[in-house]
């Protein structure tokens, strides 16, 4: 029987019809597309977006310019200089240059920072229009959210 069965199956194109049935069923199934600019899929809590510096509650910067992150970074993104003000307890960075285009998002700097001044944000829209726009200086390291978009790429960012 199996030989005739096989012949009949192949003559009446059963294998192809089964395939067509699958695509037809999927034709009516749920679509996975997310309409991107209008609806942005929220990344997970541990998402490794661009790294940002943080301030404590009183608004003073947490960073004490210990350069642990500069040493830990494998691709040399950091260039930090710090100075201890008279009477201040702790050193503060005077220059904090960070290159976004060299960063591999590996997370060593975040892990090694003693005061957890530098942490991952969940921002993944990191397109810029020019190369020096990707070089962040000290004040720029605190920008986050929408004004990070305008800092990175003021040009084509349509107001949402």
């Amino acid at each position: 029987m199996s030989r005739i069965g096989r012949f009949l199956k192949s003559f009446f194109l059963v294998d192809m019809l089964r395939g067509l049935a699958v695509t037809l069923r999927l034709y009516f199934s749920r679509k996975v597309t997310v309409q991107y600019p209008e609806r942005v899929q929220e990344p997970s809590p541990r998402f490794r977006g661009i790294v940002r510096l943080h301030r404590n509650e009183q608004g003073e910067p947490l960073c004490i310019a210990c350069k642990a992150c500069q040493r830990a970074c494998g691709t040399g993104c950091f260039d930090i200089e710090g100075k201890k003000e008279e009477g201040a307890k702790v050193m503060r960075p005077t220059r904090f240059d960070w290159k976004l285009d060299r960063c591999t998002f590996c997370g060593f700097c975040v892990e090694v920072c003693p005061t957890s001044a530098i942490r991952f944000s969940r921002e993944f829209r990191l397109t810029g229009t020019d190369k020096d726009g990707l070089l962040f200086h000290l004040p720029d390291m605190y920008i986050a959210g929408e004004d990070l978009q305008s800092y990175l790429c003021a040009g084509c960012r349509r107001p949402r």
Partner: protein
Amino acid sequence: MTPFVADVLIPVGKIVAVILYPMIMVVVMIWLERRVVALMQGRLGPNRVGFQGVLQPVADAVKLFFKEDIMQRQADAFLFNISPVLVMFSSLLAFCFVPLGEPIRIGTYTLTLWIAESPVGLLIILGLSSISVFGVIFGGWASNSKYPLMGALRSVVQVLSYEIPTGLTVLTVAFVARSMDLVEIVRRQEASGTWYGFLMPVSFIVFWISAIAETNRAPFDLPEAESELVAGYHTEYSGMKFAFFYMAEYAHMVLVSSLVVILFFGGWLPPFPSVKALAFLHAVPGFVWYLVKIMFFLYLYVWIRATLPRYRFDSLIRLVWKWLIPLALANFLVVALVRFLR
């Protein structure tokens, strides 16, 4: 109905209509293909330009219009430029012979929904559809680069060998309808009450498979197999020339679908013409039935493309010479016997 209107205005109007009809169908077809393939793959497809992406093909056409139209230095200029015209011309011209519906009587004047009705309309359409092969060969050869040449060689062999089963199956229909005139065939189906597709299922299946192969579509899209020959015979084309090839392929598909509908599914006849109970279906104009049937077959084209992998070249040729042609011959023999005995 002054002679001026009858002899000039109406024919010109009809000619413009026949040119616009395939263009609109091509636009609809491009949109349909991108949407249906997308929906079958679990995604939405173009839905930004115009309502649900309907204007996307127009956007593509405008983009292609403004794209730079480059030509290889060593390309054979004349052949390189003539081939898109050849391909487009043959597809559009064939639409003149495609009857879209029952002639409409306006007062004393009967407006026939086709441009030309000739006793050998079927033959002319087949002849024209093989002219587009010339366009493909010249295009592939004239681009003077390896991939288009291989694409052209492949499509020549494919289209020529698939014309034989097409011709044979079309012959069975002409044989049963005792005429090559498309309008006559539809009238014959109306008279006999059954569609030829149900009368001769084998010729319908063979015709449909070889029709897919002839338009280089779905499992038989060897000449333009992206993953192998980059883009086949129109690799070197860009801008409007590429748009011509692109639109001609879709026009050819619409042409072949309308041929299938007319020959096997009773052009503009409602589903069961002879059954008296369904007489109310006649209220719907013939043209609508014709369109519904064409849309089904265009959908079938896209459905097959989204599902089946691509044949390899030698198995494609083996399929036609070892299976389709013998089947078509046997079928023709059976039809002839049946006709003779009855």
